[in-house]
């Protein structure tokens, strides 16, 4: 869930904008110049993937995918996320334009964290990859929900209850994202391992 306009106090909105710009600058420097257009195209794919709804019981949730973005794009994940959020805000009004900085931090930092976690955990077997992807995917959403809660909580004491609820509401999403990340990484491991940085066996 993205923060809409009008929730954050102006100081927080401006502060998170500044912080997000700093992180995005770091992320862009970590990305090769020629990769920037490629990141843009891949971002559209993540954008479309995040529109997929997965049913849970009578309702359904849409995917957030910070974990998967981090796993696949590494440090460039942050600019990809920020770019995706700009599009969501401009296209659909998912997330307000004044909250863009906050939303970028909320989804982008978990992407970076998931990348680190995945890199630490992945071994050299398919099983290890799958397990670490599940952890990274679940952790990404959990962290995103925590940041959301934190941002809501500092927006005023009246929103603390909403913040708590946001965390609970994201718990099923954590499970779903963990599973989806695991299946996606398992698929990629078998089909296009170079995307996961798996060492390629030399072809004959």
């Amino acid at each position, binding site marked *: 869930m993205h923060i809409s306009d009008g929730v954050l106090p102006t100081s927080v909105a401006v502060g998170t904008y500044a912080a997000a710009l700093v992180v995005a600058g770091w992320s862009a420097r970590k990305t090769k110049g020629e990769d920037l257009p490629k990141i843009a195209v891949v971002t559209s794919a993540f954008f479309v993937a995040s529109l997929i709804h997965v049913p849970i019981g009578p309702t359904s949730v849409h995917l957030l995918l910070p974990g998967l973005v981090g796993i696949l794009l590494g440090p460039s994940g942050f600019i990809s996320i920020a770019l995706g959020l700009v599009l969501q805000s401009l296209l659909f009004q998912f997330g307000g334009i004044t909250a863009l900085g906050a939303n970028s931090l909320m989804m982008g930092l978990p992407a970076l964290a998931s990348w680190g976690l995945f890199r630490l955990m992945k071994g050299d077997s398919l099983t290890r990859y799958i397990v670490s992807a599940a952890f990274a995917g679940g952790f990404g959403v959990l962290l995103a929900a925590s940041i959301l809660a934190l941002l809501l909580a500092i927006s005023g004491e009246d929103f603390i209850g909403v913040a708590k609820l946001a965390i609970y509401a994201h718990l099923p999403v954590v499970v779903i994202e963990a599973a989806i990340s695991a299946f996606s990484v*398992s*698929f990629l491991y*078998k*089909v*296009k391992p170079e995307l996961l940085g798996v060492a*390629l066996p*030399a*072809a*004959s």
Partner: protein
Amino acid sequence: MHETAVPRHPESQQFTLLEARGLSYRYPNGQAALSGVDLTIYEGDRIALIGHNGAGKTTLVKHLNGLYAAQSGELLFHGEPLQDENLKRVRLDIGVLFQDPDDQLFCNTLYEDIAFGPLNQGFTPEEADALVHESARKVGMEELLFKAPHNLSYGQKKRAALATVLSMHPDALILDEPTANLDPRQEEVFTELIREFPGTLIVISHDLTFLYGICDRAVVMEKGGVHHDYTMKELASQRKYLREHGLESSFRFTCCGGHHHEAPTHAHPHSHGRSSSMGAAGGQSDDRPIARQKSGDSDAPLIHLLDYSYRHPDGAWGVRDIHLHVNEGESIAVAGENGAGKSTLARCILGITEGRGSYAFDGKLVTKKNRKALWRQVGMVFQNPADQLFCPSCWEEVAFGPRQMGLPKNEVEARVEEALQAVRLTGYERRAPHHLSSGERKRLAIAAALSIRSRVLILDEPTANLDAGSEDLLFEIISHLPVTKILISHDMALMMALCERAIVLHQGRIIRDYACAELERDVHLTSINGIDYTLKNACRDAMLSLQEGAA
């Protein structure tokens, strides 16, 4: 106009545009793509680049345009190696029309896309503006300049992509499968545009009849090297060359040309006097693994659409006033220009979209409720196998349908084995669909539909973009499938060889429903919907007569 082929003399007086000497290239994974290519391209050449899928044509083209650097050997542009300034020049002077127009149209309006090249060439915005309008006019899209690419039809996108290259006034134009997926009318328009191009042409295509109308030199590639360098006429007149290079689909040139070597075992369309009925498929079903006994009321047609119409959400008609009945075991060709409603009709039959009117399947009316279960009866093989294959292994891909049906494990296994066998992909179980060749992927997509054992199979352009060898195999497999087939195609030869009956759609309506052979002779179609099969037929006839002369 098809007698344009001029014999090429190696010691021609023309200037050399590009020259490759011992050019080799390996993919990052070590696989060799090009090995020792020697090729000289002269200014004004019109080259057909031919070869099997995977022979290295696309990789060669990417070298010629400066996208790939030579790993060994050398490549000279105007006599100089491709470095620095020369590299920049080769990219700007040699235009490439890529296969998928969506790769080439990367801006948000046509205008920006067409202006992109000229602006990078250093033209001022005013000069670029003139170039944009000039090339948009050339491809007949001036009034669409401010449209976004996703609002264009496929044919329009293809022409727009050409305009983005033409606006740069390239010395040479490289075209990768330019006419794939175009309907005959658009293909004709496109062919005319290419023919008008004054510079050097290099065309990759599997469509020999199309190449014959445009090119005068044929370079045949095989296993990463240049295998032969003929004049187009030489190549076309020698059946043995065609066969040697796998350029000749047996059904395409034997069916109506009189050479019935390796005659495929399908019902020949020329026997159209026979009533279209179970004939071919019914006779074979006994010895086929995937056999289906005819069930239910034998008099009721399998598919019966009555007064069926569908409107798109934007109000445009998809199909309208459709009266169609298809009997079990029939093979029906569905023809019509792009946007005539062929895909919509398929979606209605599949039960994905629901229109107005009555639709009965096997005598039972399709209702809101049982429409959801129609997928067990009607399967579809989509035009682009990439849209259909999403599993990490071939086995899972084929097992997907049966699993969704909730079949027990051993039954799923049996069906997968059987379906893979039917498309001759036994042994591919653990391979990733994404890595198969396009022909193999097409076959896998068929297997994925077969394992559901549906009674109707809708095939959308099954042989598009395949080399002749893959095409032949696919054709043989399809013609032996003991199911009711609905073939959506622009390919006259394929329709003739596979189907007895043809329906022609135009603006959502069925305007013809007759024997396939009549479709070929139907000259009125041109005036109705601009579908013109005569150009291709003329090319084919010219080639056949050349071959007769040589034999």
